[in-house]
């Protein structure tokens, strides 16, 4: 019982302490994925299919590339693997999910069908 009370107290206290410390203008109007890598913030747009490398201090676009995927797939979810030096772009269509792999420069590597996973 005490553990539960403590957990709820921690949740409430933590939630009230958060603060927005910086605000950037998004490079597009439907940013559905963010990632951190190579000292930069990365953003992916669900409508324009663009992946942006951003200066995290200013929001300025350093570089960008297009995320090519089937028309029915909605871009959502972005990851950057520092270990393997690749950008992972998520694509979602109904019950199916796909991960598309790119180099940070935007060269397509391949994709994996996640079977909804």
């Amino acid at each position: 019982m005490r553990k539960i009370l403590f957990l709820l107290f921690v949740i409430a206290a933590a939630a009230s302490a958060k603060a927005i410390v910086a605000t950037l203008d998004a490079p597009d109007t439907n940013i559905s994925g963010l990632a951190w890598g190579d000292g930069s913030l990365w953003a992916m747009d669900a409508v324009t299919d663009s992946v942006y490398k951003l200066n995290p201090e200013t929001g300025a676009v350093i570089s960008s590339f297009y995320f090519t995927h089937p028309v029915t797939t909605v871009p959502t979810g972005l990851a950057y693997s520092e270990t393997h030096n690749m950008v992972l772009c998520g694509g979602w269509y109904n019950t199916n999910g796909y991960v598309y792999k790119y180099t940070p420069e935007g060269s397509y590597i391949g994709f994996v069908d996640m079977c909804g996973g």
Partner: protein
Amino acid sequence: MTGLSASGNYVFLGSRNQNRIYYYTLPNITTRKDFTYMMGFSTTCDIAFNATDSLVWVASENTSICIKCYDTNNTMVDYIPNTMIANARGMALDPGGYLWVSDIDADKIYKIDLTEGIEEQTQDITVTPSSNPFCGAVTIQTPGLNASVVVFDMHGRQIVSDSFQESWTWNSSSPAGHYVFVITDDQGASTTLDLVKI
């Protein structure tokens, strides 16, 4: 599958259809393992993995709490209400522990300090419960205010949400236990109550 986050030799994947977080081995994305179940959350979007504490932050189209944080025991351990971020989608954690969130209503990307600071966009409001602990029903009062309330159980599941003027009574058949009440007034100020039903 709507969320991705990478850490070391793993990529974490948020499944919107299954309400689960899995992780796979990189670079070929093989060998699926369970990370957590997102109890009480749905319509999930991007995710951000916190390797230091083995937690995952999840964005959602939920209209009251847009971001929740889960541990590996399927338990919500933290959250960010919509009063701070209106419509969260993209999520990332930087090496300094700051959470980055995109808001598609404002077309902004926010950097959030999860550990310190004074809130910029929310403030507490005065909310008084009729009793705590309570038996059967409880009434919360917000004198002079129109407000909304969302109630969560200890697993982070949303039990009820409602709008009210100055006073709201919860007469629920929910079992005894601990409940978190998030009350937000029409100016966006909010506060949280931890009430016990006996």
